[in-house]
Protein backbone atom coordinates (compact mmCIF):
# COMPACT_ATOMS: atom_id res chain seq x y z
CA UNK A 1 0.00 0.00 0.00
CA UNK A 2 2.96 2.28 0.37
CA UNK A 3 4.11 2.43 -3.25
CA UNK A 4 3.81 5.98 -4.53
CA UNK A 5 2.23 6.57 -7.93
CA UNK A 6 3.56 8.65 -10.79
CA UNK A 7 1.98 11.88 -9.63
CA UNK A 8 3.48 11.51 -6.22
CA UNK A 9 0.28 10.36 -4.56
CA UNK A 10 0.09 7.27 -2.46
CA UNK A 11 -2.42 4.70 -3.57
CA UNK A 12 -4.52 5.57 -0.58
CA UNK A 13 -4.54 9.24 -1.47
CA UNK A 14 -5.43 8.36 -5.00
CA UNK A 15 -8.38 6.30 -3.85
CA UNK A 16 -9.42 9.07 -1.53
CA UNK A 17 -9.44 11.40 -4.50
CA UNK A 18 -11.43 8.94 -6.61
CA UNK A 19 -13.99 8.86 -3.82
CA UNK A 20 -14.32 12.62 -3.94
CA UNK A 21 -14.80 12.50 -7.70
CA UNK A 22 -17.56 9.91 -7.27
CA UNK A 23 -19.53 11.97 -4.86
CA UNK A 24 -19.01 15.36 -6.46
CA UNK A 25 -22.03 15.37 -8.82
CA UNK A 26 -24.39 14.42 -6.02
CA UNK A 27 -22.89 16.90 -3.57
CA UNK A 28 -22.94 19.76 -6.06
CA UNK A 29 -26.57 19.06 -6.92
CA UNK A 30 -27.57 18.99 -3.28
CA UNK A 31 -25.70 22.21 -2.60
CA UNK A 32 -27.45 23.89 -5.48
CA UNK A 33 -31.00 22.60 -5.05
CA UNK A 34 -31.10 22.17 -1.27
CA UNK A 35 -28.49 24.16 0.60
CA UNK A 36 -28.84 27.32 -1.43
CA UNK A 37 -32.63 27.46 -0.86
CA UNK A 38 -32.05 26.56 2.78
CA UNK A 39 -29.74 29.53 3.23
CA UNK A 40 -32.36 31.70 1.56
CA UNK A 41 -34.94 30.30 3.95
CA UNK A 42 -32.69 31.15 6.86
CA UNK A 43 -32.28 34.73 5.63
CA UNK A 44 -36.04 34.90 5.21
CA UNK A 45 -36.48 33.74 8.79
CA UNK A 46 -34.81 36.96 9.94
CA UNK A 47 -37.35 39.13 8.16
CA UNK A 48 -40.88 40.23 8.92
CA UNK A 49 -43.47 42.26 7.05
CA UNK A 50 -46.66 42.19 5.03
CA UNK A 51 -46.80 40.68 1.55
CA UNK A 52 -43.61 41.34 -0.36
CA UNK A 53 -42.46 44.27 1.78
CA UNK A 54 -40.17 42.43 4.16
CA UNK A 55 -37.47 43.94 6.28
CA UNK A 56 -34.83 42.56 8.63
CA UNK A 57 -35.94 42.18 12.19
CA UNK A 58 -33.18 40.13 13.75
CA UNK A 59 -34.35 37.09 15.66
CA UNK A 60 -37.85 38.36 16.37
CA UNK A 61 -39.40 35.43 14.50
CA UNK A 62 -37.54 33.06 16.77
CA UNK A 63 -38.57 34.77 19.97
CA UNK A 64 -42.10 34.79 18.59
CA UNK A 65 -42.05 30.97 18.44
CA UNK A 66 -41.59 30.87 22.20
CA UNK A 67 -44.83 32.80 22.67
CA UNK A 68 -46.87 30.77 20.21
CA UNK A 69 -49.24 28.29 21.89
CA UNK A 70 -50.11 26.73 18.53
CA UNK A 71 -46.48 25.91 17.84
CA UNK A 72 -46.15 24.29 21.25
CA UNK A 73 -49.26 22.24 20.60
CA UNK A 74 -48.01 21.08 17.19
CA UNK A 75 -44.58 20.31 18.64
CA UNK A 76 -46.20 18.12 21.27
CA UNK A 77 -48.40 16.35 18.70
CA UNK A 78 -45.50 15.67 16.39
CA UNK A 79 -43.28 14.23 19.10
CA UNK A 80 -46.14 12.12 20.37
CA UNK A 81 -46.50 10.57 16.90
CA UNK A 82 -42.74 10.09 16.71
CA UNK A 83 -42.41 8.27 20.01
CA UNK A 84 -45.28 5.86 19.44
CA UNK A 85 -45.31 5.33 15.73
CA UNK A 86 -41.67 4.98 14.67
CA UNK A 87 -40.70 2.10 16.99
CA UNK A 88 -43.91 0.16 16.42
CA UNK A 89 -43.70 0.55 12.69
CA UNK A 90 -40.03 -0.38 12.40
CA UNK A 91 -40.36 -3.46 14.58
CA UNK A 92 -43.39 -4.58 12.63
CA UNK A 93 -41.59 -4.02 9.34
CA UNK A 94 -38.61 -5.98 10.57
CA UNK A 95 -40.76 -8.92 11.65
CA UNK A 96 -42.64 -8.95 8.36
CA UNK A 97 -39.43 -8.75 6.38
CA UNK A 98 -37.83 -11.66 8.17
CA UNK A 99 -41.01 -13.74 7.83
CA UNK A 100 -41.16 -12.96 4.13
CA UNK A 101 -37.51 -13.80 3.68
CA UNK A 102 -38.26 -17.40 4.57
CA UNK A 103 -37.27 -19.66 1.71
CA UNK A 104 -40.05 -22.17 2.35
CA UNK A 105 -42.83 -19.65 2.38
CA UNK A 106 -45.27 -19.80 -0.50
CA UNK A 107 -46.99 -16.85 -2.20
CA UNK A 108 -44.16 -14.60 -1.03
CA UNK A 109 -44.50 -12.26 -3.99
CA UNK A 110 -48.19 -11.83 -3.39
CA UNK A 111 -47.77 -11.18 0.33
CA UNK A 112 -44.98 -8.69 -0.27
CA UNK A 113 -46.93 -6.80 -2.89
CA UNK A 114 -50.03 -6.64 -0.72
CA UNK A 115 -48.10 -5.34 2.25
CA UNK A 116 -46.24 -2.81 0.15
CA UNK A 117 -49.36 -1.49 -1.57
CA UNK A 118 -50.53 0.92 1.15
CA UNK A 119 -47.67 3.34 0.52
CA UNK A 120 -48.34 3.31 -3.22
CA UNK A 121 -52.01 4.05 -2.64
CA UNK A 122 -52.86 7.60 -3.51
CA UNK A 123 -53.30 9.85 -0.53
CA UNK A 124 -56.73 10.94 -1.71
CA UNK A 125 -58.32 7.53 -1.47
CA UNK A 126 -56.45 6.50 1.62
CA UNK A 127 -57.60 9.57 3.53
CA UNK A 128 -61.18 9.07 2.36
CA UNK A 129 -61.17 5.44 3.38
CA UNK A 130 -59.74 6.04 6.83
CA UNK A 131 -62.18 8.83 7.48
CA UNK A 132 -65.11 6.67 6.50
CA UNK A 133 -63.82 3.62 8.40
CA UNK A 134 -63.56 5.64 11.58
CA UNK A 135 -66.67 7.75 10.98
CA UNK A 136 -69.29 7.83 13.72
CA UNK A 137 -71.34 5.15 12.01
CA UNK A 138 -68.39 3.72 10.15
CA UNK A 139 -67.06 0.20 9.92
CA UNK A 140 -64.92 0.27 13.07
CA UNK A 141 -67.79 1.40 15.24
CA UNK A 142 -70.06 -1.21 13.69
CA UNK A 143 -67.54 -3.85 14.75
CA UNK A 144 -67.31 -2.37 18.24
CA UNK A 145 -71.09 -2.47 18.55
CA UNK A 146 -71.00 -6.05 17.36
CA UNK A 147 -68.78 -6.89 20.33
CA UNK A 148 -71.20 -5.12 22.62
CA UNK A 149 -68.92 -2.15 23.20
CA UNK A 150 -69.80 1.49 23.03
CA UNK A 151 -68.99 3.17 19.71
CA UNK A 152 -66.21 5.74 19.87
CA UNK A 153 -66.42 9.18 18.27
CA UNK A 154 -62.92 8.81 16.88
CA UNK A 155 -62.46 12.26 15.44
CA UNK A 156 -64.17 14.13 18.25
CA UNK A 157 -61.61 13.43 20.93
CA UNK A 158 -57.98 14.56 20.84
CA UNK A 159 -56.52 11.22 21.93
CA UNK A 160 -58.62 8.98 19.73
CA UNK A 161 -58.00 11.27 16.75
CA UNK A 162 -54.26 11.00 17.39
CA UNK A 163 -54.66 7.25 17.62
CA UNK A 164 -56.32 7.21 14.20
CA UNK A 165 -53.40 9.17 12.76
CA UNK A 166 -50.90 6.75 14.26
CA UNK A 167 -52.83 3.73 13.01
CA UNK A 168 -52.99 5.29 9.56
CA UNK A 169 -49.26 6.02 9.58
CA UNK A 170 -48.35 2.51 10.61
CA UNK A 171 -50.69 1.10 8.01
CA UNK A 172 -49.20 3.23 5.29
CA UNK A 173 -45.47 3.07 5.98
CA UNK A 174 -44.79 -0.41 7.37
CA UNK A 175 -44.58 -1.96 3.92
CA UNK A 176 -42.35 0.86 2.76
CA UNK A 177 -39.81 0.17 5.48
CA UNK A 178 -40.14 -3.54 4.90
CA UNK A 179 -38.68 -2.98 1.43
CA UNK A 180 -35.40 -1.74 2.89
CA UNK A 181 -35.16 -4.64 5.31
CA UNK A 182 -35.94 -7.17 2.61
CA UNK A 183 -33.23 -5.80 0.41
CA UNK A 184 -30.82 -5.58 3.35
CA UNK A 185 -31.51 -9.20 4.27
CA UNK A 186 -30.25 -10.30 0.85
CA UNK A 187 -26.78 -9.24 1.86
CA UNK A 188 -26.77 -11.71 4.73
CA UNK A 189 -25.52 -15.06 3.57
CA UNK A 190 -28.11 -17.78 3.90
CA UNK A 191 -25.45 -20.13 5.17
CA UNK A 192 -25.27 -18.08 8.37
CA UNK A 193 -28.87 -18.99 9.06
CA UNK A 194 -28.25 -22.61 8.14
CA UNK A 195 -25.40 -22.77 10.60
CA UNK A 196 -27.50 -21.21 13.34
CA UNK A 197 -30.27 -23.70 12.69
CA UNK A 198 -27.88 -26.61 12.87
CA UNK A 199 -26.53 -25.23 16.15
CA UNK A 200 -30.10 -25.40 17.43
CA UNK A 201 -30.79 -21.68 17.73
CA UNK A 202 -34.46 -20.81 18.14
CA UNK A 203 -36.03 -18.48 15.56
CA UNK A 204 -36.15 -15.77 18.21
CA UNK A 205 -32.46 -16.18 18.96
CA UNK A 206 -31.64 -16.12 15.27
CA UNK A 207 -33.63 -12.94 14.89
CA UNK A 208 -31.87 -11.09 17.68
CA UNK A 209 -28.40 -12.59 17.32
CA UNK A 210 -28.08 -12.60 13.56
CA UNK A 211 -30.75 -10.61 11.73
CA UNK A 212 -30.76 -7.50 13.88
CA UNK A 213 -26.96 -7.00 14.17
CA UNK A 214 -26.34 -7.67 10.49
CA UNK A 215 -29.14 -5.34 9.47
CA UNK A 216 -27.81 -2.54 11.63
CA UNK A 217 -26.86 -0.24 8.73
CA UNK A 218 -30.35 -0.60 7.27
CA UNK A 219 -32.00 -0.14 10.64
CA UNK A 220 -30.08 3.09 11.06
CA UNK A 221 -31.20 4.23 7.63
CA UNK A 222 -34.86 3.56 8.32
CA UNK A 223 -34.69 5.08 11.79
CA UNK A 224 -33.24 8.33 10.52
CA UNK A 225 -35.61 8.60 7.58
CA UNK A 226 -38.67 7.69 9.65
CA UNK A 227 -37.72 10.19 12.32
CA UNK A 228 -37.27 12.79 9.66
CA UNK A 229 -40.49 11.83 7.94
CA UNK A 230 -42.52 11.93 11.13
CA UNK A 231 -41.14 15.27 12.25
CA UNK A 232 -42.09 16.66 8.85
CA UNK A 233 -45.44 14.89 8.83
CA UNK A 234 -47.94 16.81 6.77
CA UNK A 235 -50.27 14.76 4.60
CA UNK A 236 -52.07 12.84 7.33
CA UNK A 237 -52.59 15.88 9.48
CA UNK A 238 -54.05 17.83 6.58
CA UNK A 239 -56.10 15.14 4.89
CA UNK A 240 -57.27 12.86 7.67
CA UNK A 241 -58.20 15.23 10.46
CA UNK A 242 -57.31 18.67 9.13
CA UNK A 243 -55.59 19.14 12.47
CA UNK A 244 -58.81 18.69 14.44
CA UNK A 245 -60.52 18.48 16.79
CA UNK A 246 -59.28 21.97 17.45
CA UNK A 247 -55.58 21.80 16.79
CA UNK A 248 -55.00 18.63 18.72
CA UNK A 249 -53.69 16.55 15.81
CA UNK A 250 -51.99 19.28 13.80
CA UNK A 251 -48.32 18.72 13.01
CA UNK A 252 -45.53 21.28 12.78
CA UNK A 253 -45.28 21.02 9.00
CA UNK A 254 -49.01 21.46 8.65
CA UNK A 255 -48.82 24.62 10.73
CA UNK A 256 -45.92 25.89 8.64
CA UNK A 257 -47.84 25.24 5.47
CA UNK A 258 -50.88 27.05 6.85
CA UNK A 259 -48.73 29.99 7.86
CA UNK A 260 -47.38 30.27 4.32
CA UNK A 261 -50.28 29.37 2.09
CA UNK A 262 -53.59 29.28 3.95
CA UNK A 263 -53.53 32.11 6.43
CA UNK A 264 -52.40 35.58 5.58
CA UNK A 265 -48.83 34.69 4.53
CA UNK A 266 -46.05 35.12 7.04
CA UNK A 267 -43.04 33.60 5.32
CA UNK A 268 -40.47 34.84 7.79
CA UNK A 269 -42.21 33.10 10.65
CA UNK A 270 -42.78 29.94 8.61
CA UNK A 271 -39.09 29.87 7.72
CA UNK A 272 -38.08 30.32 11.35
CA UNK A 273 -40.24 27.38 12.39
CA UNK A 274 -38.74 25.30 9.59
CA UNK A 275 -35.26 26.05 10.85
CA UNK A 276 -36.33 24.84 14.28
CA UNK A 277 -37.53 21.56 12.76
CA UNK A 278 -34.23 21.26 10.93
CA UNK A 279 -32.32 21.67 14.18
CA UNK A 280 -34.51 19.15 16.01
CA UNK A 281 -34.16 16.51 13.29
CA UNK A 282 -30.44 17.15 13.01
CA UNK A 283 -29.90 16.62 16.74
CA UNK A 284 -31.85 13.37 16.66
CA UNK A 285 -30.04 12.20 13.54
CA UNK A 286 -26.62 12.92 15.01
CA UNK A 287 -27.57 10.99 18.15
CA UNK A 288 -28.78 8.09 16.04
CA UNK A 289 -25.61 8.16 13.92
CA UNK A 290 -23.46 8.14 17.04
CA UNK A 291 -25.25 5.07 18.34
CA UNK A 292 -25.73 3.19 15.11
CA UNK A 293 -22.99 4.10 12.68
CA UNK A 294 -19.97 2.33 14.10
CA UNK A 295 -17.98 0.43 11.57
Amino acid at each position, binding site marked *: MSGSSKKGLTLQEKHGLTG*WVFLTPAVLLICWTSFYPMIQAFILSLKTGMGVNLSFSGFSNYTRILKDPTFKQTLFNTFFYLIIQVPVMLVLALILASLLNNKQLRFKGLFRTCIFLPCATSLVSYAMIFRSLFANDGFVNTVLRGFGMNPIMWFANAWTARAVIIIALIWRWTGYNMVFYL*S*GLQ*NIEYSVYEAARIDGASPLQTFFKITVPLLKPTILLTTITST*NGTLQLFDESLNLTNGGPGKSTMTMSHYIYNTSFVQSPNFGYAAAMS*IIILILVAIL*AILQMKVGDER
Partner: protein
Amino acid sequence: MMSKGKKFFMYAFLTIFSLLSIFPLYYMFCAATNKSIDVIAGKLIPGTYLIENYKSLIANQNLGLALWNSFRNSFILTVLCLLVCSIAGYGFEIYHDKGKDAVFTVLLTAMMIPFAAVMIPMFRMFSSLNMVNTMAAFMLPSISTPFMIMMFRQASRSFPHDIIEAARIDGLSELAIFFRMFFPTMRSTYAAAMTIVFMNAWNNYLWPKVILMTNESITMPMLVANLLGGYTVDYGMLMLGVFICTIPTAIVFFCLQKSFAEGITGAVK
Protein backbone atom coordinates in the same frame (compact mmCIF):
# COMPACT_ATOMS: atom_id res chain seq x y z
CA MET B 1 -38.67 -27.52 9.33
CA MET B 2 -41.34 -25.55 11.07
CA SER B 3 -44.07 -27.17 13.06
CA LYS B 4 -47.57 -27.14 11.62
CA GLY B 5 -48.86 -24.81 14.29
CA LYS B 6 -46.16 -22.26 13.72
CA LYS B 7 -46.68 -22.43 10.01
CA PHE B 8 -50.38 -21.89 10.38
CA PHE B 9 -49.78 -18.96 12.66
CA MET B 10 -47.36 -17.42 10.19
CA TYR B 11 -49.71 -17.75 7.23
CA ALA B 12 -52.61 -16.46 9.26
CA PHE B 13 -50.61 -13.43 10.37
CA LEU B 14 -49.43 -12.62 6.85
CA THR B 15 -52.86 -13.16 5.38
CA ILE B 16 -54.57 -10.87 7.85
CA PHE B 17 -51.92 -8.23 7.37
CA SER B 18 -52.18 -8.49 3.60
CA LEU B 19 -55.95 -8.26 3.66
CA LEU B 20 -55.83 -5.18 5.84
CA SER B 21 -53.30 -3.69 3.48
CA ILE B 22 -55.23 -4.22 0.30
CA PHE B 23 -58.64 -3.37 1.67
CA PRO B 24 -58.40 0.23 0.45
CA LEU B 25 -57.46 -1.01 -2.98
CA TYR B 26 -60.52 -3.19 -3.00
CA TYR B 27 -62.59 -0.22 -1.85
CA MET B 28 -61.13 1.87 -4.68
CA PHE B 29 -61.93 -0.83 -7.17
CA CYS B 30 -65.53 -1.14 -6.00
CA ALA B 31 -65.95 2.61 -5.98
CA ALA B 32 -64.58 2.84 -9.50
CA THR B 33 -67.32 0.51 -10.69
CA ASN B 34 -70.16 2.27 -8.93
CA LYS B 35 -72.21 5.41 -9.34
CA SER B 36 -71.15 8.39 -7.29
CA ILE B 37 -74.20 8.21 -5.07
CA ASP B 38 -73.58 4.55 -4.27
CA VAL B 39 -69.96 5.24 -3.43
CA ILE B 40 -70.96 7.87 -0.93
CA ALA B 41 -73.50 5.49 0.58
CA GLY B 42 -70.61 3.12 1.30
CA LYS B 43 -71.45 0.33 -1.13
CA LEU B 44 -68.75 -2.33 -0.95
CA ILE B 45 -69.75 -4.62 -3.81
CA PRO B 46 -68.42 -4.10 -7.33
CA GLY B 47 -71.02 -2.45 -9.53
CA THR B 48 -71.65 -2.10 -13.22
CA TYR B 49 -70.82 1.54 -13.71
CA LEU B 50 -67.17 1.16 -14.66
CA ILE B 51 -67.62 1.98 -18.35
CA GLU B 52 -69.66 5.10 -17.58
CA ASN B 53 -67.08 6.26 -15.06
CA TYR B 54 -64.34 5.68 -17.57
CA LYS B 55 -66.23 7.57 -20.26
CA SER B 56 -66.78 10.57 -18.04
CA LEU B 57 -63.17 10.44 -16.90
CA ILE B 58 -61.75 10.62 -20.40
CA ALA B 59 -64.35 13.20 -21.39
CA ASN B 60 -63.23 15.36 -18.48
CA GLN B 61 -59.50 14.84 -18.36
CA ASN B 62 -56.64 14.05 -20.68
CA LEU B 63 -55.89 10.66 -19.17
CA GLY B 64 -53.48 9.49 -21.86
CA LEU B 65 -51.34 12.58 -21.63
CA ALA B 66 -51.23 12.46 -17.85
CA LEU B 67 -50.21 8.80 -17.87
CA TRP B 68 -47.55 9.39 -20.47
CA ASN B 69 -46.13 12.42 -18.64
CA SER B 70 -46.07 10.59 -15.34
CA PHE B 71 -44.36 7.59 -16.90
CA ARG B 72 -41.76 9.64 -18.73
CA ASN B 73 -40.99 11.89 -15.77
CA SER B 74 -40.77 9.05 -13.28
CA PHE B 75 -38.66 6.92 -15.57
CA ILE B 76 -36.07 9.55 -16.40
CA LEU B 77 -35.93 10.74 -12.84
CA THR B 78 -35.48 7.22 -11.51
CA VAL B 79 -32.59 6.42 -13.83
CA LEU B 80 -30.78 9.70 -13.15
CA CYS B 81 -31.34 9.49 -9.43
CA LEU B 82 -30.08 5.93 -9.14
CA LEU B 83 -26.99 6.74 -11.16
CA VAL B 84 -25.99 9.87 -9.26
CA CYS B 85 -26.89 8.61 -5.80
CA SER B 86 -25.49 5.11 -6.06
CA ILE B 87 -22.11 6.30 -7.24
CA ALA B 88 -22.04 8.88 -4.45
CA GLY B 89 -23.13 6.39 -1.81
CA TYR B 90 -20.45 4.01 -3.04
CA GLY B 91 -17.90 6.81 -2.91
CA PHE B 92 -18.84 7.75 0.63
CA GLU B 93 -18.53 4.22 1.94
CA ILE B 94 -15.79 2.48 -0.02
CA TYR B 95 -13.36 5.39 0.14
CA HIS B 96 -14.56 6.66 3.47
CA ASP B 97 -12.36 8.87 5.58
CA LYS B 98 -12.97 11.57 8.18
CA GLY B 99 -13.55 14.28 5.59
CA LYS B 100 -16.14 12.33 3.65
CA ASP B 101 -17.97 11.23 6.78
CA ALA B 102 -18.21 14.87 7.81
CA VAL B 103 -19.49 15.91 4.40
CA PHE B 104 -22.03 13.12 4.58
CA THR B 105 -23.36 14.29 7.93
CA VAL B 106 -23.76 17.79 6.52
CA LEU B 107 -25.54 16.42 3.46
CA LEU B 108 -28.05 14.64 5.64
CA THR B 109 -29.33 17.96 6.93
CA ALA B 110 -30.51 18.72 3.40
CA MET B 111 -33.48 16.41 3.86
CA MET B 112 -34.46 17.78 7.23
CA ILE B 113 -36.13 21.02 6.30
CA PRO B 114 -39.84 21.05 5.41
CA PHE B 115 -40.38 21.50 1.72
CA ALA B 116 -42.87 24.33 2.25
CA ALA B 117 -39.96 26.43 3.52
CA VAL B 118 -37.63 25.98 0.56
CA MET B 119 -40.26 25.99 -2.14
CA ILE B 120 -40.28 29.74 -2.61
CA PRO B 121 -36.49 30.23 -2.69
CA MET B 122 -36.31 27.29 -5.07
CA PHE B 123 -38.93 28.80 -7.34
CA ARG B 124 -37.08 32.11 -7.30
CA MET B 125 -33.87 30.33 -8.22
CA PHE B 126 -35.38 28.54 -11.20
CA SER B 127 -37.35 31.54 -12.36
CA SER B 128 -34.22 33.71 -12.37
CA LEU B 129 -32.60 31.06 -14.55
CA ASN B 130 -35.64 31.19 -16.82
CA MET B 131 -36.36 27.56 -16.12
CA VAL B 132 -39.98 27.73 -15.06
CA ASN B 133 -42.04 25.19 -16.99
CA THR B 134 -39.05 23.05 -17.87
CA MET B 135 -38.59 19.39 -17.08
CA ALA B 136 -35.17 20.19 -15.70
CA ALA B 137 -36.61 22.46 -13.04
CA PHE B 138 -39.03 19.75 -12.07
CA MET B 139 -36.35 17.07 -11.85
CA LEU B 140 -33.22 18.72 -10.56
CA PRO B 141 -34.30 18.95 -6.92
CA SER B 142 -35.08 15.22 -6.76
CA ILE B 143 -32.12 13.75 -8.63
CA SER B 144 -29.68 13.85 -5.78
CA THR B 145 -31.29 13.09 -2.44
CA PRO B 146 -29.47 12.47 0.85
CA PHE B 147 -31.89 9.65 1.52
CA MET B 148 -30.89 7.65 -1.55
CA ILE B 149 -27.21 8.41 -1.05
CA MET B 150 -27.51 7.09 2.46
CA MET B 151 -29.32 4.01 1.27
CA PHE B 152 -26.48 3.14 -1.08
CA ARG B 153 -23.89 4.10 1.48
CA GLN B 154 -25.42 1.72 4.02
CA ALA B 155 -25.79 -1.03 1.44
CA SER B 156 -22.19 -0.68 0.28
CA ARG B 157 -21.13 -1.64 3.77
CA SER B 158 -21.86 -5.27 2.97
CA PHE B 159 -19.98 -5.14 -0.32
CA PRO B 160 -16.84 -7.24 0.25
CA HIS B 161 -13.56 -5.37 -0.04
CA ASP B 162 -11.81 -8.48 -1.40
CA ILE B 163 -13.74 -8.11 -4.63
CA ILE B 164 -12.44 -4.58 -5.04
CA GLU B 165 -8.88 -5.61 -4.25
CA ALA B 166 -9.08 -8.53 -6.69
CA ALA B 167 -10.45 -6.30 -9.41
CA ARG B 168 -7.70 -3.75 -8.84
CA ILE B 169 -5.09 -6.46 -9.24
CA ASP B 170 -6.81 -7.41 -12.50
CA GLY B 171 -6.17 -3.85 -13.61
CA LEU B 172 -9.73 -2.54 -13.59
CA SER B 173 -10.14 1.21 -13.12
CA GLU B 174 -12.08 2.43 -10.11
CA LEU B 175 -15.03 3.45 -12.30
CA ALA B 176 -15.00 0.07 -14.01
CA ILE B 177 -15.09 -1.64 -10.62
CA PHE B 178 -18.20 0.32 -9.77
CA PHE B 179 -20.00 -0.46 -13.01
CA ARG B 180 -18.83 -4.04 -13.51
CA MET B 181 -18.62 -5.32 -9.96
CA PHE B 182 -20.74 -3.23 -7.64
CA PHE B 183 -23.61 -2.51 -10.02
CA PRO B 184 -24.50 -6.15 -10.86
CA THR B 185 -23.81 -7.42 -7.35
CA MET B 186 -26.09 -4.92 -5.66
CA ARG B 187 -29.07 -5.73 -7.82
CA SER B 188 -31.32 -6.14 -4.80
CA THR B 189 -30.46 -2.68 -3.51
CA TYR B 190 -30.97 -1.12 -6.93
CA ALA B 191 -34.31 -2.84 -7.29
CA ALA B 192 -35.48 -1.62 -3.90
CA ALA B 193 -34.22 1.88 -4.56
CA MET B 194 -35.86 1.90 -7.95
CA THR B 195 -39.24 1.04 -6.43
CA ILE B 196 -38.95 3.81 -3.88
CA VAL B 197 -37.69 6.48 -6.27
CA PHE B 198 -40.24 5.59 -8.90
CA MET B 199 -43.04 5.75 -6.38
CA ASN B 200 -41.93 9.10 -5.00
CA ALA B 201 -41.52 10.53 -8.48
CA TRP B 202 -44.90 9.20 -9.50
CA ASN B 203 -46.70 10.65 -6.51
CA ASN B 204 -44.86 13.98 -6.38
CA TYR B 205 -47.44 16.72 -6.38
CA LEU B 206 -46.65 20.05 -4.78
CA TRP B 207 -43.48 20.98 -6.65
CA PRO B 208 -44.61 19.98 -10.17
CA LYS B 209 -47.88 21.79 -9.53
CA VAL B 210 -45.97 24.99 -8.88
CA ILE B 211 -43.16 24.73 -11.41
CA LEU B 212 -45.01 23.11 -14.33
CA MET B 213 -47.89 25.36 -15.21
CA THR B 214 -48.87 24.37 -18.72
CA ASN B 215 -51.76 22.07 -19.49
CA GLU B 216 -49.42 19.88 -21.47
CA SER B 217 -47.44 18.87 -18.40
CA ILE B 218 -50.32 17.42 -16.37
CA THR B 219 -49.38 14.34 -14.33
CA MET B 220 -51.56 11.70 -12.71
CA PRO B 221 -51.64 13.23 -9.21
CA MET B 222 -52.62 16.58 -10.77
CA LEU B 223 -55.36 14.82 -12.68
CA VAL B 224 -56.68 13.28 -9.49
CA ALA B 225 -56.59 16.69 -7.81
CA ASN B 226 -58.61 18.12 -10.68
CA LEU B 227 -61.27 15.49 -10.10
CA LEU B 228 -61.57 16.62 -6.50
CA GLY B 229 -61.80 20.33 -7.07
CA GLY B 230 -65.33 21.00 -8.21
CA TYR B 231 -68.39 22.05 -6.27
CA THR B 232 -69.68 18.53 -6.81
CA VAL B 233 -67.36 15.56 -6.77
CA ASP B 234 -68.18 12.53 -8.89
CA TYR B 235 -66.84 9.92 -6.51
CA GLY B 236 -67.07 7.03 -8.95
CA MET B 237 -65.00 8.90 -11.50
CA LEU B 238 -62.61 10.13 -8.82
CA MET B 239 -61.97 6.65 -7.51
CA LEU B 240 -61.41 5.33 -11.01
CA GLY B 241 -58.79 8.05 -11.49
CA VAL B 242 -57.19 7.18 -8.17
CA PHE B 243 -57.25 3.51 -9.05
CA ILE B 244 -55.53 4.11 -12.37
CA CYS B 245 -53.01 6.30 -10.57
CA THR B 246 -52.17 3.52 -8.10
CA ILE B 247 -51.82 0.58 -10.47
CA PRO B 248 -48.48 1.47 -12.15
CA THR B 249 -46.57 1.67 -8.86
CA ALA B 250 -48.10 -1.62 -7.82
CA ILE B 251 -46.98 -3.22 -11.07
CA VAL B 252 -43.48 -1.82 -10.76
CA PHE B 253 -43.27 -3.20 -7.26
CA PHE B 254 -44.62 -6.58 -8.22
CA CYS B 255 -42.09 -6.92 -11.05
CA LEU B 256 -39.15 -5.80 -8.97
CA GLN B 257 -39.88 -7.48 -5.65
CA LYS B 258 -38.31 -10.76 -6.76
CA SER B 259 -35.05 -9.01 -7.54
CA PHE B 260 -34.70 -7.33 -4.22
CA ALA B 261 -35.98 -10.12 -2.07
CA GLU B 262 -34.69 -13.26 -3.71
CA GLY B 263 -32.08 -11.68 -5.86
CA ILE B 264 -28.55 -12.75 -5.67
CA THR B 265 -27.99 -14.64 -2.49
CA GLY B 266 -24.70 -16.36 -2.98
CA ALA B 267 -23.49 -14.16 -5.81
CA VAL B 268 -21.22 -12.36 -3.40
CA LYS B 269 -18.42 -14.72 -2.62
